């Protein structure tokens, strides 16, 4: 590489990398340190090594300082479950629509994509809050069902896990839709024909050809939805009536009400490690696909 090239590279790469190193990697590092320090009485930390925050979660807490409580793992698993259900529901909502839109004439395609992106321009919280209005006891759905005599007492739709998942699906639709759409759109339809031609009926063609070929988009969208769903604390607060505690709420609570920064950081580290595992799984899966059939197939995740 010539000196001029190196200078150019430095100019292009330098500012961004310095920025990210200082404001992304250093904060993460500080958080790791914080998670291993003792909590201060009114927030902040005491400078002494204190692994018990992790012990509280994972079961090796020294009873002299802290106490292990399985409730945290329970919250962990529940959050994972809700995030996973969100992923599945979002996928079910988006996949057929992506399919339909990808096979429309180009003019329509552009318009539909625009329609999907448009709600993004309203406030996320307002979009969530409107579901409170819809789902609540005296809301329109219950009103309609009562008026038609289908039910005689209001359904309890709001403040439940179901409502949380519904809300998350609603706000994460574009995150799932875009990558899935990208890979469906790229799907080579002659392969579908080839499959039929070779004697495979619609179901088998879907399972053996369409699904594997759109898998990169599905995997990419799933990762992109799973991770924020896991850490989300707003949807449980608004639509879960704060009755269902997820990881995000637990972490928020440590910082904003229990004043236990190290424990909050330790929990955040746990989330971070799940994220890294999910990301590595993604890289591994798409890497394997890459090796199998060329890089062209594995791009869906990036959109």
């Amino acid at each position, binding site marked *: *590489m010539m000196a001029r*090239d190196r200078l150019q*590279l430095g100019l*292009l*790469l330098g*500012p*961004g*990398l310095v*920025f*990210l190193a200082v*404001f*992304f990697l250093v*904060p*993460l590092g*500080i*958080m790791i340190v914080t998670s291993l320090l003792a909590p201060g009485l009114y927030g902040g930390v005491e400078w002494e090594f204190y692994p018990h925050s992790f012990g509280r979660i994972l079961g090796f807490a020294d009873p002299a300082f802290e106490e292990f409580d399985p409730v945290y793992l329970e919250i962990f698993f529940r959050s994972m479950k809700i995030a996973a259900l969100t992923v599945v529901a979002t996928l079910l*909502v988006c996949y*057929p*629509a992506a*399919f*339909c*839109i990808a096979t429309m004439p180009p003019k329509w395609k552009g318009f*539909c994509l*625009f*329609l*999907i992106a*448009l709600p*993004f*321009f*309203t*406030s*996320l*919280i*307002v*979009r969530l809050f*409107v*579901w409170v209005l*819809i789902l609540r006891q*005296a809301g*329109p759905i219950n009103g309609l069902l009562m008026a038609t005599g289908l039910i005689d007492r209001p359904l309890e739709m709001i403040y439940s896990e179901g409502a949380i998942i519904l809300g998350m699906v*609603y706000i994460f639709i574009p995150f799932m839709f875009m990558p899935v759409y990208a890979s469906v759109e790229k799907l080579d339809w002659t392969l579908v024909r080839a499959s039929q031609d070779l004697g495979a009926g*619609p179901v088998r063609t879907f399972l053996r050809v369409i699904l594997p070929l759109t898998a990169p988009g599905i995997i990419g969208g799933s990762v*992109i939805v799973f*991770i924020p769903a896991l*850490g989300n*604390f*707003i949807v449980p607060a608004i639509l879960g009536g704060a009755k269902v505690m997820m990881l*995000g709420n637990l*972490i928020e609570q440590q*910082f904003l009400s229990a004043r236990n*920064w190290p424990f909050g*950081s330790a929990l*955040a*580290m746990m989330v*971070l490690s799940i*994220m890294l595992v999910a*990301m590595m799984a993604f*890289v591994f899966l798409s890497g394997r696909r890459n090796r199998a059939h060329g890089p062209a197939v594995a*791009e869906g995740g*990036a959109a």
Partner: protein
Amino acid sequence: MMARLFRRGLVAYTALFFAFIYLPLLLIAVYSFNSNPVNMMTWSGFTTEWYLQVLGFKTAVSEAAMYIESTDQLLAALRNSLTIAFSTTLVATVLGTSIALAIYRYRFFGARYYQVLMFMPMLIPDIVLGIALLIFFVNAGIHLGIGTIIIGQCTFLTSYVFIVVSSRLAGMDRSLERASADLGANEWVTFRKVVLPQLMPGVAGGALLAFIISMDDLVITYFISGTDVTTLPVFIFAMLRRGIKPEINAIAVLMLTFSFAVASLGLYLRSRRK
């Protein structure tokens, strides 16, 4: 035939899909005309009051309005949000684009690891990043305020821009750069006249995405906004705890209408150019 039936089903499903997305928004629009100032859950009549207020045609409402005090704040929050969104969009677009260009143009040691690094801020859960930044700023003695919000949002918005621009670059035809050199253009001219024009849709897309996400970001901003700066989402979220203000609906509808208009104009202009 079966295929046609299946197609119809798919179209019907897609119609439902859009209904799912848009009916709630419609409801917001309806409620934005609800005259009940205290409790927007109950309909008490039609009014354009909230629009007039938001647009500044009316400053104070009748004696009955008890929540007016924060209309100013709401507008201030909107202003803050816009200021932040514009600044972050600018910074993140420049940073994200140049990193993407660097990785695209040069083969250098560990380029792939930078790519992973660039993915991380986007994929890290908001709450983790927000808290890490909070602890960082507090320890570094940096005053929490509009500056910290901009910095904090830029960390992950840079990633979004990077990814959008990168995918545009990946689809770009490198032989065009050669063609340009072949026709006598030096590197800088080639960049200006060939690379940049083709990159523009990616840059614009990345910037737009960054803007939208910045306007919407709650969690990270929530942790790193000082007391003196409140953004719209943070303000609305705080307000939710005490019951939502009707002006919020009006603002949401205005934002939607405005962006719809801008986007439609863009589409129209593009279709005319072709």
